[in-house]
């Protein structure tokens, strides 16, 4: 094939105990966007890191424009024309946009001193190419929004003038509107003749942006397809190797939302959100949508007392809440699943049972305050069974579990406090399809038991898929409330972006 820019032939890569890549073959055509999909652990990241020069394959070969290549480091791959945009942003928060983009390649003058004027000028040129002139090259990256950091990350990869750009989950921290901007930029790159490998969990994105798709499963190549000849179901079936129906599941028959469980009246927190009125009924899943920075997460954290609200009133089961700390919230029966499970939610170096009981140790204490091992183990075994956590045992260290299973541990840990209200923030970020469908099932089963759930998410299909009712936030205010019937993609985006204005008064 004359048009192939990159060819991976029979590449195998083994880590202690795991065959991460098993005889994988992959062909990238010049000037195309080629999606790479698969569940967590399917080998996408390993393949990407192998192409990026971080790993060396055990066997097999990589051909770049027909020539076999072998990389010793990421800078080797860069020089050969392959650039990777990493999922975990590889930026240094203290340094400026310009210094991040030109890490180690800053233009210099005599004595290897940095030529600052040229550095800023080059950065401005790159920013302009992406229509991002509004970003000041001197701003420390730590002060930028996630979306802008993503732009910086891509520009960093672009600054070496690559022929092939690999994007790993580029939209995982972006909202829908921001993702659209990203797609526009990807199309621009494609038009410039750059070939792109696009890795994503969001199958809908693949149909929007990719030309071809390759599915990996358990380190093996499963199939290649032209995107316009397949549908989402086909991809899911190939990814998981079995048929999954509607991943969002169905509302339990006969389930009915009960009385008002939680109510916020005119709640505000200076600088984050204000005048928020919101209600969650018993057994209801309420979606809270909005752009990143619209105050969604801050509102969730305020209800949980992490950063308490400073105005307004909140009621749980009709009783006025005065929550000043997360400890009080837990005692009152409010749980909160953080969006950032790795740094805020879980103890990754501890085992499953320790994580499961961490937020309600009191329940496992004898009268004098010693922990009851047996009770903890019994509880942990029950949770692993009930919540379908895939693990060799309850003593497994959490960092050895997949992202989806870690998330299930977090969900079950919060269920353990027997909450009335559970706030879940981005519950499926970075979680693969199979585990996602499990998590949705869990949330539905909680609701069926009378728990009220407030679901904060940037994932629009998720919000629309499992919410009974949706609030949309914009610039720190509730922009509108949509019933299940009214909640459509257009309506939510319209409210979030401020195109649609609708203030449906709450009947309090």
């Amino acid at each position, binding site marked *: 094939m004359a048009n192939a820019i990159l060819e991976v032939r029979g590449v195998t890569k083994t880590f202690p105990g795991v065959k991460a890549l098993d005889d994988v073959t992959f062909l990238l055509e010049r000037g195309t966007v080629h999606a790479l999909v698969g569940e967590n652990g399917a080998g996408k990241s390993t393949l990407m890191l192998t192409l990026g020069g971080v790993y060396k394959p055990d066997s097999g070969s990589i051909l770049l424009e027909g020539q076999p290549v072998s990389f010793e480091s*990421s800078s080797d791959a860069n020089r050969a024309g392959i650039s990777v945009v990493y999922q975990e942003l590889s930026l240094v928060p203290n340094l400026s946009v310009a210094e991040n983009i030109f*890490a180690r390649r800053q233009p210099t003058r005599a004595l290897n001193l940095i030529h600052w004027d040229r550095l800023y000028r080059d950065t401005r040129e790159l920013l302009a190419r992406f229509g991002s002139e509004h970003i000041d090259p001197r701003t420390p990256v730590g002060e930028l929004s996630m979306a802008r950091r993503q732009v910086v990350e891509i520009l960093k990869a672009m600054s070496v003038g690559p022929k092939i750009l690999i994007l790993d989950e580029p939209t995982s921290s972006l909202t829908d509107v921001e993702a659209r901007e990203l797609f526009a930029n990807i199309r621009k790159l494609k038009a410039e003749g750059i070939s792109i490998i696009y890795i994503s969990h969001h199958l809908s994105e693949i149909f929007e942006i990719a030309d071809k798709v390759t599915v990996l499963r358990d380190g093996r190549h499963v199939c290649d397809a032209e995107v316009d000849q397949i549908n989402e179901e086909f991809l899911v079936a190939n990814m998981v190797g079995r048929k999954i129906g509607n991943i969002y599941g169905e509302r339990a028959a006969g389930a009915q939302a009960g009385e008002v469980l939680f109510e916020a009246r005119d709640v505000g927190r200076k600088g984050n959100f204000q005048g928020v009125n919101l209600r969650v009924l018993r057994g209801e899943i309420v979606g809270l949508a909005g752009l990143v920075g619209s105050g969604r997460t801050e509102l969730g954290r305020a209800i949980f007392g992490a950063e308490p609200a400073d105005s307004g009133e909140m009621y749980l089961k009709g009783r006025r809440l005065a929550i000043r700390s997360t400890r009080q919230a837990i005692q009152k029966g409010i749980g909160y699943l953080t969006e950032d499970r790795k740094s805020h939610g879980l103890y990754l170096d501890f085992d499953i049972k320790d994580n499961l009981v961490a937020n309600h140790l009191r329940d496992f204490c004898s009268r004098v305050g010693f922990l009851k091992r047996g009770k903890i183990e019994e509880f942990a075994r029950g949770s692993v069974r009930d919540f379908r956590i895939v693990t060799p045992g309850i003593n497994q260290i959490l960092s050895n579990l997949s992202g989806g299973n870690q998330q299930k541990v977090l969900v079950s840990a919060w269920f353990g406090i027997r909450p009335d209200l559970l706030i879940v923030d981005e519950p499926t970020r970075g979680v693969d399809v199979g585990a996602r469908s499990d998590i949705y099932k869990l949330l539905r089963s909680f609701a069926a038991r009378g728990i009220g759930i407030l679901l904060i998410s940037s994932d629009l299909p998720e919000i629309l898929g499992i919410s009974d009712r949706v609030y949309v936030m914009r610039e720190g205010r509730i922009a509108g409330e949509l019933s299940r019937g009214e909640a459509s993609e257009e309506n939510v985006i319209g409210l979030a972006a401020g195109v649609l204005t609708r203030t449906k008064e709450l009947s309090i």
Partner: protein
Amino acid sequence: MNFFQRLVRQREFVIFIIVLAVVVAMSFASPIFLTEGNILALLLSLSIQSVMAVGMVNLMVGGGFDMSVGSILGFTGIIVAMIMKAGVPTPLAVAIGLLAGVAIGLWNGIVVAKLKINPFVTTLASLSIFRGLTFALTSGRNIAELPKAFKAIGQTRVAGIQLPIIYALVLVVIGDIVMRNARFFRQNYYIGGNEKAARLSGINVDGMTIFNYMLTGVLAAFAGIVFTARMGAASCQAGTGWELGVITAVILGGASLRGGSGTVFGSFLGVFLMALISTSLTLLNVDVYWQQFVVGVVLIAAVLIDTLGSVRSAAGPAKKQAIGGKAA
């Protein structure tokens, strides 16, 4: 962000204002404070620490930490004095002393970067090893009556200014320029700011870390040579506990224990402030024991001003999502 906002947000700015305030207050409080003699004495007293601080800030920006600089200072002084007594000519003895500093730094660096031992533990061990060695080699005795040529290194005046002051100022100026502008030294900001990112950007993290410890070592050795020459005798006790003073000054000057931030100029201001405090308290006839107390209060105050300031400017989601330093 305009120039003034940028300026105010530098930690150097906070400490610069504090230094300025103390200087102004003292010039009113004490008639001899702003005399040439007092200023030179002040600079001389802080010159040795300044030399060590240049190495330390570079190391700490790169995410490292060195508890052994005081011991390296003492060890080098004794080694150089001993071999000169044994008949080794002064220039060669000085070269050997500097090499000893490089070697100890190399050892620290390899243990930290290659064997992945925590920097605090590694250099705490070195602190003990080389202080112990210093005492063992001399049985705790000091070495006096050193060659004239050697003492000249620390006692000569150029245009009325003692050489140690000149060494310190030259090193501070060069250090500040290269840490701000040289591509090679800038690499430390990437390493300290986000080590994984630095590796992915193709920076030789281990090599750079080893280099940083070597630089800290050789500057501590140089400080030891200058100090010994100035005193005219090598003492086993020289430099005991100074690592804490140097680290305090570097943090005062805006560096973070997590790495990724700090400047040479800021660190120099930190050293300057600490010397200023002791001079001022002496001039004001305050008991010498209060000096440490005041240094501690100033340290926590400077760090708090900085933290509270940045909390306010980074409130909201930006702060929460900021990638906090190096992964543990």
